[in-house]
């Protein structure tokens, strides 16, 4: 990976398990330098983890050798700072903001394993937007501090 700079984190991430691990490590380190509180750190890491995992698994149908771009910035919007993440990949078109989880209120015996990842992003983000442009999926996620 390459690309950390002052004022934010910008990475080109290999779409594999090692890339995911390195991404989360870099995000965690960046949040620590910004002294982000633990609860917000956990939220950002979960969202980064789930969205990156979704890209790695589905954008190219598990075909190896692909990469996606990631950016994390700390921005002041009005009176409140917010953490903003951007993901960009050239894989199959997919809008994660339209995903509708099912079964989250099921009882234990009926509860299935899937559908939680994107539900977590939708629940943790104050803003979660998607657009398809120039053959790329572009995701923006905001978490107000």
């Amino acid at each position, binding site marked *: 990976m390459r690309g950390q700079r002052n004022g934010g984190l910008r990475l080109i991430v290999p779409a594999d398990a090692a890339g*995911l691990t390195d991404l989360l490590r870099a995000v965690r380190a960046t949040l620590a330098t910004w002294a982000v509180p*633990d609860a917000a750190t*956990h*939220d950002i890491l*979960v969202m980064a*983890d789930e969205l990156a995992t979704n890209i790695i698994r589905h954008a190219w149908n598990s075909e190896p050798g692909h990469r996606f771009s990631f950016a994390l910035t700390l921005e002041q919007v009005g009176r409140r700072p917010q953490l903003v993440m951007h993901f960009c990949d050239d894989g199959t078109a997919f809008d994660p903001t339209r995903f509708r989880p099912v079964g989250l209120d099921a009882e*234990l*015996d009926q509860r299935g394993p899937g559908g*939680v*990842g994107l539900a977590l992003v939708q629940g943790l983000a104050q803003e979660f937007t998607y657009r398809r442009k120039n053959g790329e999926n572009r995701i923006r996620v905001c978490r107000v501090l």
Partner: protein
Amino acid sequence: MQITREDLDNAIVMRVEGWIDATTVREFREQVIGVIAPGAERVVLDFNALAYISSAGLRSVLDIAKEIRALRGAFAIFGAGPGVRRVFEISGFLRIIPLVSSEAEALALMGR
């Protein structure tokens, strides 16, 4: 991630330290499910030192809960920080898995 086991009179307490994510979830699942058996079906997870859990970790917690349910045992988690608790809340897991504040509360749910 590290897990230490403590056998108490009415439950096995598994103390989890670190991260439960895609790289550690298999070890987490194997270690916890590995202690569950007839006669050892009351399990408490100590999440005081758990720094992070992803959806992969939640799926393993679900597997553990179902395994214990199949043996008509008891299961509870205590000590989760705000971030971990929030993940349980959003995913609907608070409805199906007891998440309490203290070890005493968790052990009280184990019965006997």
